[in-house]
């Protein structure tokens, strides 16, 4: 708090200063006028004395044969001049203190002093003897000196100087003292009265100031009592109303804060809806409220939670309007109803907004125990609706994230499981090297490759592609693997294995799905390779010298046509492996890999690159092929599952 004089004290001091200044001006003015009047009176009196002395001296001069007789003059001035005696001891005197009489040449004729010790100079300069009468006051104003010619017409030669005592100085000083004392006393009194009166008059203002301080310090229960019907009374009642309103709003704000914290920490959607309705129900004290949310596609609106009575049937239209226009719908009661001044909104639909998009709405029914909602409550509920929109959206997003994580986790498990279904290393075939890998485009792929070693030096190699991608294709791939493993146990020829597999798949597979496959069976000791092809890409064989052969026996995809059509057009091809021959098996993820222009890698590039890499070990050859395919596709994402298998007879 700043220190120093209070405002009111400053006002008082200013007021007292003004009064004092005004008083001083008045006192000085009157004192000056009083002094001038006194001097004028004394001048008059002293001139009278001068006239009297001049008359007497004129008479004396002519009565003494035009001479001045000092002895006679001394008697008169000492005993008779200007003395009036009455009855008893009464006497009035205005006798001069000193009288001096000079010749026109400046020589002293006669001098008188009331104390008997005349001290007038015996000679004065003639120029100092004025022919006019002069009245001069000395500085402390206790003497007046009147001088002038005895006869203004010069009939009597000589000049007279009369020195008269006066009390003007004394009287003026007494007046000044009195005025100063009165001014100081008045100032003091005015100050005191000012303090007392302002203290009394401004007590309510001080009370308001104190109240404001207490409210500021957190004492919201404090109220001021001032019954007077004046401006201060109006200010006091306004202050009390303001504090009450403030307290009400503060309480409401705390409740809103509590509720928003509660709903902000709730991410289970159904519990969140229940809490939101609790919040609206509790804050609005409504008879009922209901929460509506858009359905997944956003085309329809569903009531997801209700609190209180049943949802009125006529609420649907305003809910749709609020969602469509993204505006609150306030349903008002008629102005003719009782208590209309208390507020007119009897129920409302408030949109719940996420970003700029309304995601739902809350219907708040009529208040319980009141005719309507006031403007403040409507504004509060709109604020709550904003929080509710954010909370609903947050919960939705969190659920989406959780769902996504769950799916990702499950996909991860599926990927791991599928990985175990593929061979992690090639089987050892005497005189041959074998390598392969599969890279799904998504977490789970539909490509399948496998190596199966069977009795008698027989080895099966299969590469297949389930139509479509993802989990469905992955599940079919696992079924295919089981069937291939099962039938290869007791069936030697690759075409027979695929026939058995097809019979099962045609029956069980979704009618839109099918599987393409190349199944090779190698008799290692005779180097005879038997090839069955079920609608799959042709088998590529690169010779040690770079010659290229395509092996493509007839055969349609597994599960695509009826069993009869499949088996009627199913052929087998045979090829005897020569030293250095490399069989390359692949899926369309290789041949249909696209560059940024949409051009496909294609069979020609595959042949060219495979031939170029034929002298590398099979693993390095396949890695090199994959590298070239990826370089061709540049930055484009892998569109389809990629599988590559290479079998080479040692040179």
């Amino acid at each position: 708090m700043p220190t120093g004089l209070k405002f009111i004290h400053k006002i008082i001091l200013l007021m007292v200063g003004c009064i004092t200044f005004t008083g001083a001006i008045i006192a000085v003015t009157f004192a000056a006028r009083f002094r001038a009047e006194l001097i004028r009176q004394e001048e008059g009196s002293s001139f009278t004395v001068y006239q009297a002395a001049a008359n007497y001296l004129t008479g004396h001069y002519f009565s003494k044969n035009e001479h001045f007789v000092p002895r006679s003059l001394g008697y008169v001035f000492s005993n008779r001049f200007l003395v009036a005696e009455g009855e008893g001891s009464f006497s009035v005197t205005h006798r001069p203190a000193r009288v001096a009489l000079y010749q026109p040449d400046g020589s002293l004729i006669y001098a008188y002093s009331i104390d008997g010790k005349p001290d007038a100079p015996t000679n004065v300069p003639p120029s100092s003897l004025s022919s006019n009468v002069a009245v001069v006051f000395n500085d402390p104003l206790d003497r007046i000196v009147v001088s002038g010619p005895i006869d203004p017409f010069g009939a009597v030669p000589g000049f007279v100087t009369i020195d008269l005592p006066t009390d003007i100085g004394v009287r003026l000083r007494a007046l000044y003292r009195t005025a100063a004392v009165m001014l100081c006393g008045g100032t003091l009194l005015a100050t005191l009265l000012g303090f007392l009166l302002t203290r009394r008059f401004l007590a309510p203002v001080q009370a308001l100031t104190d109240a404001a301080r207490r409210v500021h310090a957190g004492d919201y229960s404090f109220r001021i009592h001032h019954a007077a019907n004046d401006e201060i009374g109006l200010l006091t009642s306004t202050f009390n109303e303001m504090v009450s309103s403030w307290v009400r709003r503060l309480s409401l704000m705390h409740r809103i804060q509590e509720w928003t914290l509660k709903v902000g920490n709730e991410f289970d959607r159904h519990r969140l809806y229940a809490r939101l309705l609790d919040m609206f129900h509790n804050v609005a004290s409504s008879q009922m409220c209901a929460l509506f949310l858009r359905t997944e596609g956003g085309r329809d609106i569903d009531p997801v939670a209700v609190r209180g009575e049943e949802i009125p049937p006529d609420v649907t239209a305003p809910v749709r309007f609020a969602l469509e226009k993204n505006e609150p719908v306030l349903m008002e009661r008629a102005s003719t109803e009782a208590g209309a001044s208390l507020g007119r909104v009897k129920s409302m639909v408030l949109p719940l907004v996420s970003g700029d998009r309304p995601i739902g709405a809350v219907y708040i029914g009529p208040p319980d125990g009141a005719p309507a909602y006031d403007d403040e409550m409507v504004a509060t509920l709109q604020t709550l609706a904003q929080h509710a929109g954010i909370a609903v959206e947050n919960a939705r997003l969190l659920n989406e994230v959780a769902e996504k994580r769950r799916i990702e986790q499950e996909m991860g498990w599926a990927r791991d499981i599928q990985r175990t279904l593929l061979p992690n290393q090639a089987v050892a075939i005497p005189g041959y090297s074998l390598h392969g890998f599969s890279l799904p485009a998504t977490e789970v792929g539909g490509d399948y490759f496998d190596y199966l070693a069977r009795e008698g030096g027989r080895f099966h190699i299969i590469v297949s592609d389930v139509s479509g991608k993802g989990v469905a294709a992955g599940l079919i791939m696992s079924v295919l693997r089981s069937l291939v493993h099962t039938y290869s146990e007791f069936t030697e020829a690759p075409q027979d294995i695929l026939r058995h597999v097809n019979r099962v798949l045609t029956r069980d597979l979704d009618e839109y799905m099918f599987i393409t496959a190349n199944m090779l069976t190698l008799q290692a000791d005779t180097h005879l390779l038997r090839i069955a092809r079920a609608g799959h890409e042709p088998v590529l064989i690169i010779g040690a010298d770079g010659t290229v052969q395509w092996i493509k026996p007839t055969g349609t995809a597994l599960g695509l046509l009826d069993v009869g059509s499949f088996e009627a057009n199913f052929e087998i091809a045979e090829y005897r492996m020569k030293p250095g021959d490399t069989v390359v098996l692949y899926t369309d993820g290789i041949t249909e890999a696209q560059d940024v222009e949409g051009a496909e890698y294609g069979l020609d590039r595959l042949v060219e690159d495979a031939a170029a890499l034929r002298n590398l070990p099979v693993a390095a050859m396949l890695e090199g092929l994959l590298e070239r395919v990826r370089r061709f596709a540049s930055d484009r994402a892998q569109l389809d599952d990629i599988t590559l298998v290479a079998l080479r007879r040692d040179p």
Partner: protein
Amino acid sequence: MGKYELDVQVNAESGVQLVELDGPVDSATIEVFKARLDPVCNQPGAKVLLDCQQLTYLNSRAIGLLVTYHRRLLQTHGRLALCRLNTKLVRSLDLLQLGKTLFTYETREDGLESF
């Protein structure tokens, strides 16, 4: 760069439902393909000709669908035929040995006359 959306126009011509495909049928457009062809090809006895001149890609699931439509229509004495297939599509059908199963024609007129 090729087109990324699939347009499917269905017009009746001489009692044949002529379906013109423009764009690729891949994982992004397969549902549009199915939604437009289901009402046409699931009508018993319908005669349907697919004009594939503007068809840039047909994925394996779409091929499976065509085989299914073909099979169903044959069962109800209807028929599905394809015309103006590009070389890639022809190769895909050949790989699957479907060239002899599905009815394919080089021109639209040949396709329409086949009904």
